[in-house]
């Protein structure tokens, strides 16, 4: 397989802390691809973890709603990931105030997200960084989950997972409270919050810092207590919490004026799964 990379200055599409992304073309199929050039050298411990994770998990996953890893190659001391090129993402759409989302739009995005997440989970891979900017959209409108830099497999159960994952606003309560043995629920929670954000067009639970995030989350959705969530108070982060009551359906309905009943139920299910 061979690829042509455009002139680096003109076709550079993005630059992150550990990678530069170029737009290129696959010579055999003429399709657009994104080449992610991982910066090495500046890390004294070798390659960045997230690059390894991305390669490791994307190689295993093939699904219409998960970004495709076309190839991996090495050039001049750099590791290059060849990914399919996806021109837009949900964050861009949410921020573009000129766009109106129809219920059908939101429904199909959510469905595609859930299909992708389901595929990851049935292969026992947690994404751990779901957020609108990681849900990319193709030219034809297919939604694909990207950025597996924080992904991790549900390995042997005696390992400790770090609870310091997922972008703050989309972090599930067990992570906020410092749980170390969570499961797919953290991804489902993020999907629920993304769903809320798609309806509100602003982030649903924007905490200013980690402590504030706990407060914001529980103020909106109620503080879990031992009676509804077994032993929740033994989690390391569970101390000095203000106990907020569970929101009634009325309150939620007021917050999401345009949402239909079933939409509210679905959102509730998404954000409550861990509790039950």
């Amino acid at each position, binding site marked *: 397989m061979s690829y042509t990379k455009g002139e680096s200055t003109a076709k550079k599409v993005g630059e992150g802390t550990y990678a530069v992304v170029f737009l290129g073309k696959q010579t055999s199929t003429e399709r657009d691809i994104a080449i992610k050039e991982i910066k090495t050298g500046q890390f004294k411990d070798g390659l960045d973890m997230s690059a390894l994770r991305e390669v490791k998990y994307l190689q295993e996953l093939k699904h219409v709603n998960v970004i495709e890893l076309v190839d991996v190659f090495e050039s001049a001391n750099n590791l290059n990931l060849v990914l399919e090129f996806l021109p837009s993402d949900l964050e861009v759409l949410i921020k573009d105030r000129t766009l109106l989302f129809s219920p059908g739009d939101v429904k199909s995005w959510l469905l595609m997200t859930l*299909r992708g997440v*389901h595929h990851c989970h049935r292969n*026992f891979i947690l994404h751990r960084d779901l957020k609108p900017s990681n849900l990319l959209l193709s030219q034809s409108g297919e939604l694909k989950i990207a950025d597996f830099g924080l992904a991790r497999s549900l390995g042997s159960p005696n390992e400790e997972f770090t609870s310091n994952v997922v972008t703050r606003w989309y972090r599930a309560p*067990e992570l906020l409270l410092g*749980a170390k043995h969570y*499961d797919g629920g953290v991804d489902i929670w993020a999907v629920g919050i993304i769903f809320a954000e798609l309806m509100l067009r602003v982030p649903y639970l924007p905490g200013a810092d980690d402590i504030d995030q706990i407060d914001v989350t529980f103020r909106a959705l109620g503080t879990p207590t031992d009676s509804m969530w077994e032993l929740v108070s033994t989690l390391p982060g569970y101390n000095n919490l203000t106990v907020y009551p569970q929101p009634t359906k009325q309150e939620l309905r007021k917050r999401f004026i345009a949402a239909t009943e079933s939409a509210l139920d679905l959102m509730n299910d998404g954000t409550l799964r861990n509790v039950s």
Partner: protein
Amino acid sequence: MNVDMEERQQDMCPICKTDRYLSPDMKFLVNPECYHKMCESCVDRIFAMGPAPCPYPKCGKTLRKNKFKTQIFDNIEVEREVDVRKRVSRVFNKVREDFDTLDDYNKYLEELEDIVFNIVNGVDVEATEQKLKEYEESNKPNIEENNAKRQKELEEFKEQEQRKHDLRMKKNLIERQIEQEAREMKELEKKEIINTLASGDGTQDATKAVSQVRKSMLKRSSARRKQLDEIMQALNSSRQAKGEDKKHNVPFTPFNGDRTSQHNFDIHDSYYDPFLDELKSKKEYIASGFEVHAVYDRVLTEAFTGLGCYIEQEKKELNDAIV
């Protein structure tokens, strides 16, 4: 400074120079004859004695008081076009169903647009008005019939919406009642327990009392549930009736046909596994939402992955299909 002046102009009646600043209830009206703006009191004053010419210099159109209306759009051009469109579409009121082919309908729409364009932009206004009038004369019974039909449809739609709205309100009410009752039940239970404990009898009586309270409450709440179900059904059926018109032929499947329906193994409820059993009872695992069943599922799936896949056979079938 300039902007300021313009803003002042906007809020001032050009006829009597009354300022919005001084009389905040002032309302502006326009007449579809010439769309010159003036305040309500001017309209009252000038046109109280019947039709009179427009007070704007060099306008001179004769206006009637009953034709004055509030301006809906900021832009007077838009306002005018909407008015014209309203008037023309009262005469040209056929819909797609009234035509045999799409081409005929498009031709009809084209004609309508031509008339609107001509009147709005002042091209052959008189000829166009004449055309409109002629059409109206020759199709009078048709037009009236159509208008009556539209009216009826609109009323039906409104009625349906009203019905839906009522159902929804009722549903909310019942849901609230259910919530309320659940709360009351908890309170009552607590009280009952305290009472029985206070009276000094054994715990047996307390549980008995609680179960009694619970039973009576359950009866009530189940009746409410039933009501709720009925309403939900009514709501859904009205929605379904609408959906049937569209005829979706492709059934929706949540996984797009891509789902592992059956495992090649059965998962038992528990296995002899001292290692997992120990984790299962640990506090931090329970609190994190750890489920031993999920671990069994994963381990067994990984153990049996690939069994039941016959690569050679699949390859052969693929080749046969290509040949």
